[in-house]
């Protein structure tokens, strides 16, 4: 079947499945809307958590980042998985026993303070919206490239789908849809990975092939690399030949990799949309096991990602280096059809400029285009048929032959790192149905995470802000909203959240990538410490908690804003720590401030100390949901 039809078929079938599930799993009560009735089987909950967490960034961008950063990319892999160890041991079981619906619930109740609750709500909303903007961009990329519809149209369709199952189904609909989405993603990631592993290394498992030998010889631009070399060794040699740093050697420095890993880990353990997943299991024991399943389902994908990154690098060298552009994109080179290259060039995510006028593609370190390094297209085509750009780097006088003799390389190519995973099956010449599967997987990743986040936002607004702060009856301390009214307000909040997310997707703030550092940094500096202290330190009181949250937040927020958005000078970094890793310092600051302040202020009331003792003991978790 034609590739385009296959893509419509796969994406259409997956969408029909999601909507079918949503109709089957409609939520009838607030409890079903917020925590799926608290009755999700731990294995299914693990799958849903994995789908929730595997965002467009993980599925689409992470292999590209690692293929660019090499060894230092390990920070993302360890960071995004290691956080689950902390979740399983330090947070999930106790929050499940606590047995309410949201993170602000815990913060507000444990610290007997509506101020603390409100600070928590603001954090939840800010963290979740920054995250959601990135998902919408992922939806847009997949739609514009694979379904050949306008990016904005793609976002409207995505909003419509999420609307159906998040607004109707609430947490219940989202959870069961995410189970299906995990299966789609797993299949969509693993099948191409296995194909590529067989092709590049002749080993079946990507995790093994990654440490195996390359099955073919290829030209890295400076010299031929024989088949039978270890893949990672071939990459190290090629990267250094081309003027990059070696693939398996760290160059960001131990301190920065450490800080980034820690910020991502602690941030993962503090992300509200992840934490809330553990409110949905029937028992405390299930919450712990469920974290294990979630991590296992994530590990299956995360251990393949670096392998795919390595295969992609080798395939790019093999298929692009010194290839004649016109013949390549016209499909005249046997076994190396460059139609994919032209498609991505048309969507603006690949750019080529023939700096040495030899009609062939060369790539290496350095920029091919001036300014940001991204091509700025103008009308018309160059002599090989490539799209014209206005910011090509200067021409190079020496011929490719001469440069090769001198061991020099120039860069003529721009490839957006976000397309590495999506383009991989096409680069490797895999069958059409594998490419179609990739499109469905990319959409599943973006939609599942977006839905989880939108739900957290709507719950925060209807339950925490409206129900527990604004509409609270001052006499009874209970919400004045009826169950029905709260459910309706949750649905309205979800609609508004979807519209805002759609707006952010259509008019993306120019800094989506940097903004992700925000989400993790703020989660690490705000929620992680305040929850840990609430469980493990009985003496922690509201004064300490509020002071800690605010100092962690303001410090981290200020640092990132100053260095990322206000053009702060790198030389002024605190101990040389980049903004991406600063959440770790914010977390330490939070702990110190909270403990010091609590020492000088009165102990929490007796009923709060009893509450802490109660959440430490598993027995009675089933009943605690029926408060």
């Amino acid at each position: 079947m034609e590739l385009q039809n296959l893509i419509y078929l796969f994406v259409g079938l997956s969408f029909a499945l999601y909507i079918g599930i949503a109709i089957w799993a409609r939520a009838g009560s607030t409890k079903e809307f917020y925590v799926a009735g608290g009755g999700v089987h731990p294995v299914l909950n693990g799958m849903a958590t994995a789908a929730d967490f595997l965002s467009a960034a993980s599925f689409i961008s992470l292999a590209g980042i690692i293929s660019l950063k090499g060894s230092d990319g390990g920070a993302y892999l360890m960071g995004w998985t290691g956080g689950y160890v902390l979740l399983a041991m330090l947070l999930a079981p106790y929050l499940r026993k606590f047995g309410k619906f949201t993170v602000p619930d815990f913060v507000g109740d444990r610290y007997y303070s509506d101020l603390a609750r409100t600070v928590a709500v603001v954090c939840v909303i800010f963290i979740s919206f920054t995250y959601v903007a990135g998902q919408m961009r992922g939806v847009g990329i997949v739609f514009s490239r694979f379904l050949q519809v306008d990016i904005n149209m793609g976002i409207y369709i995505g909003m419509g789908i999420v609307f159906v199952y998040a607004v109707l189904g609430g947490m219940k609909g989202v959870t069961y849809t995410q189970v299906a989405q995990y299966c789609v993603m797993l299949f969509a990631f693993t099948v191409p990975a296995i194909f590529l592993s067989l092709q590049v290394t002749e080993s079946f498992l990507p995790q093994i092939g990654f440490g195996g030998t390359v099955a073919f010889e290829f030209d890295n631009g400076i010299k031929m690399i024989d088949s039978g070399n270890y893949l990672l060794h071939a990459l190290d040699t090629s990267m250094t030949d081309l003027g990059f740093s070696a693939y398996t050697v760290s160059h960001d420095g131990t301190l920065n990799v450490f800080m980034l890993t820690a910020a991502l880990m602690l941030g993962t353990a503090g992300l509200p949309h992840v934490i809330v997943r553990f409110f949905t299991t029937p028992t405390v024991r299930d919450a712990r096991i469920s974290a294990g399943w979630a991590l296992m389902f994530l590990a299956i994908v995360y251990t393949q990602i670096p392998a795919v990154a390595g295969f992609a690098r080798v395939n790019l060298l093999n298929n692009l280096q010194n290839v004649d552009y016109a013949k390549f994109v016209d499909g005249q080179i046997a076994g190396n059809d460059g139609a994919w290259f032209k498609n991505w060039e048309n969507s603006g995510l690949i750019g080529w400029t023939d700096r040495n006028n030899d009609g062939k593609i060369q790539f290496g370190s350095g920029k091919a285009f001036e300014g940001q390094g991204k091509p700025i297209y103008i009308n018309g085509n160059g002599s090989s048929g490539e799209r014209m750009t206005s910011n090509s780097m200067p021409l190079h006088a020496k011929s490719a032959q001469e440069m090769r003799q001198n061991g020099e390389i120039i860069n003529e190519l721009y490839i957006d790192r976000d397309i590495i995973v999506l383009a991989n099956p096409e680069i490797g010449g895999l069958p059409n149905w594998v490419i179609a599967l990739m499109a469905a997987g990319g959409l599943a990743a973006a939609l599942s995470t977006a839905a989880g986040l939108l739900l957290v936002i709507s719950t925060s607004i209807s339950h925490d802000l409206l129900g527990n702060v604004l509409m609270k009856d001052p006499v009874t301390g209970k919400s004045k909203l009826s169950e029905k009214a709260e459910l309706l307000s949750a649905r309205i909040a979800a609609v508004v959240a979807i519209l805002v997310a759609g707006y952010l997707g259509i008019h993306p703030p120019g800094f989506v990538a940097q903004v992700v550092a925000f989400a993790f940094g703020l989660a690490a500096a705000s929620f992680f410490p305040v929850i840990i202290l609430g469980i493990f330190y009985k003496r922690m009181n509201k004064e300490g908690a509020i002071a800690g949250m605010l100092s962690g937040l303001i410090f981290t927020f200020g640092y990132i804003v100053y260095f990322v958005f206000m053009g702060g000078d790198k030389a002024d970094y605190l101990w040389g720590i980049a903004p991406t890793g600063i959440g770790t310092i914010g977390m330490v600051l939070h702990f110190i401030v909270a403990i010091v302040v609590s020492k000088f202020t009165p102990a929490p009331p007796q009923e709060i100390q009893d509450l802490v003792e109660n959440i430490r003991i598993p027995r009675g978790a089933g009943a605690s949901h029926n408060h």
Partner: protein
Amino acid sequence: MNREVAEAYWKENISLILKLLVIWFIVSYGFGIIFLDELNAITFGGFKLGFWFAQQGAIYVFVVLVFVYAKKMEALEKKYDIHE
């Protein structure tokens, strides 16, 4: 339930968590970051050991740690008779 039982259970829980988190720290921050270069001197197959821990090994250990914790906690709760 009496206080001593709850406190003894909590103590054992904390010491188990600390033990497992030491392993968690060593395989990721230790092997994958701090001693990366030293471990990279050791190779098996095409992998340098430090690089392998950072991009593969640490993740496998994490999975095992979480399941070990869940299993041990189940036994602990039976021992103190506070399971659900």
